[in-house]
């Protein structure tokens, strides 16, 4: 039996030279992203290793940033602790503001809005994502900030007994709160775009099953649509978080950078690694530039992890369902 069994033939193709060249070039092109990501890590690491060897973990944990006298690295103090904590605080608050609004908008667009309204709404949200960040910064500084300062005063007045809403020095402009509002406006379109897609893909037959059992619209959405989109919304949120962590000029304009950890979110003092790089860049000493490279490396790794995780989550959902 086994002797007579038919064995599959091995089929080989020898591509023509032109095709081999074509495949080589395309493959090399395909590897660009790998190469660039690798180069970014290598260059930033090589230009900043002196910082890490001088300060070690203190570069991450210390809050002080004092330029050196131009001789050696150790005559200065380089720590991005306050900037890092500030980045995380503003980004987290931005997520807090943006997610409920984005989810609500996405649900409205997919299941409540009349048909004629859906395309224009989608277009407007996509358009909002295309507005340059410096325009958001301008608007945040001149339009949103005066209004948000008023809100800050009200929150402080009524809720000041909660530690994070207290304000040791009553200055309310350029605070983490205001920066996070601007960031929230910037990331809502990102989260909405993904939430809209996953909500629109919610299986019709399950929605109809819920209706046939006597569910109201909201109950049907809560039972079928929202669970179906959960992982997608989590992924979109993390993409938004990545954007919020790395945003530079918009935050630069509406946040007062102070090199001390500050938990009073209404107060005019905050931190942002990305804005700090732009802020210090102009008059930095050569050693200080290495410190900025190190800060860039930390930011790069932080956003890389967040984005990779986000893409994993988003991809898992689009494959499943």
């Amino acid at each position, binding site marked *: 039996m086994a002797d007579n069994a038919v064995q599959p033939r091995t089929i080989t193709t020898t591509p023509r030279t032109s095709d081999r060249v074509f495949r080589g070039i395309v493959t090399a092109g395909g590897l660009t992203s790998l190469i660039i990501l690798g180069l970014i890590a290598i260059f930033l690491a090589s230009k900043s290793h002196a910082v890490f060897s001088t300060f070690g973990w203190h570069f991450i944990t210390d809050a002080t940033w004092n330029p050196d006298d131009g001789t050696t690295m150790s005559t200065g103090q380089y720590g991005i602790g306050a900037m890092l904590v500030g980045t995380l605080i503003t980004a987290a608050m931005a997520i807090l503001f943006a997610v409920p*609004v984005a989810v609500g908008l996405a649900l409205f667009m997919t299941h409540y809005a009349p048909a004629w309204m859906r395309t224009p709404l989608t277009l407007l*949200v996509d358009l909002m994502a295309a507005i340059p960040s*410096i325009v958001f910064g301008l608007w945040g500084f001149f339009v949103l900030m005066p209004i948000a300062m008023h809100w800050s005063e009200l929150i402080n007045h009524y809720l000041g007994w909660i530690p994070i809403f207290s304000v040791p020095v009553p200055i309310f402009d350029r605070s983490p709160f205001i920066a996070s509002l601007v960031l929230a406006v910037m990331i*809502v379109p990102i989260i909405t775009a993904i939430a809209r897609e996953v909500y629109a893909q919610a299986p019709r037959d399950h929605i109809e099953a819920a209706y046939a059992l006597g569910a109201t619209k909201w109950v049907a959405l809560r039972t079928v649509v929202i669970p179906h989109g959960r992982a997608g919304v989590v992924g979109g949120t993390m993409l938004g978080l990545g954007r919020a962590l790395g945003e530079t000029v918009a935050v630069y304009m509406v946040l007062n950078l102070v090199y001390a950890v500050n938990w009073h979110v209404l107060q005019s003092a905050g931190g942002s690694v990305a804005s700090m790089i732009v802020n210090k860049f102009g008059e930095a000493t050569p050693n200080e530039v290495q410190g900025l490279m190190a800060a860039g490396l930390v*930011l790069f790794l932080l956003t890389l992890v967040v984005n990779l995780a986000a893409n994993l989550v988003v991809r898992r959902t689009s494959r499943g369902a």
Partner: protein
Amino acid sequence: MATVVPTRPWRATPQVLATEAAGLAVALVLMLLTLRFTGFSGPLAAALLFIVYATAISAGLEGRRRGLRAAQDAFVRALLITATVVVLLPLVSIMWTVIDNGRAALRPNFFTQDLTSASATGPVDQGGAAQAIVGSIELVGFATLIAMPLGILSALYLTEIRGRLSGAIRFLTQAMAGVPSVVAGLFVYSAWVLGPGKGFSGFAGALALAILMLPTVARTAEEVLKLVPEHLREAGLALGGTQWRTVATIVLPTARSGLITAGILGVARIAGETAPLILTVFGAVAINTSMFNGPMSALPLYVFNELKLGLDMAYARAWTGALVLMVLVLVLFAFARWLGGRKTR
């Protein structure tokens, strides 16, 4: 037979609509009364109060008509409408303020003159952003020249070669889309400006922008190449064409308008980038057409630097820069949408 009139009995009756309208009117009156007799003031407080009252009234009306579950349904609907308004308000506000503030310095000289002869406090009919417009065109053009071929090659790898690395490459392209723009600028600064580039230059800026543009191009190009029907490729190969000839003469031309869309979306993505340019091209007041020789300006940089001056006339110029920038990005975006929409139809 007698004519039967089609109806939609599930739609709200005029009576229900009238009740709802009356409810909204009541909410409006309550809002005005609250503003008049309490400490609340300003348009936002008004909007907030109106939303709260309207939500409560509409949920209450539904509840009286159909019970608790209907009230909950109406409440959620009101919340979702509120969320939509909350997103649209800033969008409208941004558009309005940019147009309104940008008009003042929007004069012919804004497009024809640079800032060499104008003082920062000088009137807006002197000096302009010609150097920034020229710079932006050069920077974006160069970045496109770099990013388009690489992005299309990346996409071709995913759709034509479909090799073992496909998963990894798609993944890394996504990861690259998340690189903060300031990090891209810092990288080019360390790898080019401090090294072979010997100082700030347009080329350095184009490199940084290309890094940011590449993932957008690659992702969109992959989408449009995927739309090229498989049978076209097979037809090409069955005619005895090599893969290279098939891609060059059939696949790419078929996807041409989609690839142009990919490029435009990429341009829209980078045209407004500011942070990487601060670290690589620095900014300048005079027109510098050379990509390799010294700092130059660009529209986002122009806006940024004028803002930093903190003077009224400079603010006016910054707003106009933002207006031109935004119109540019939106036109690109609309054009890409139009091209894309035309293709799918």
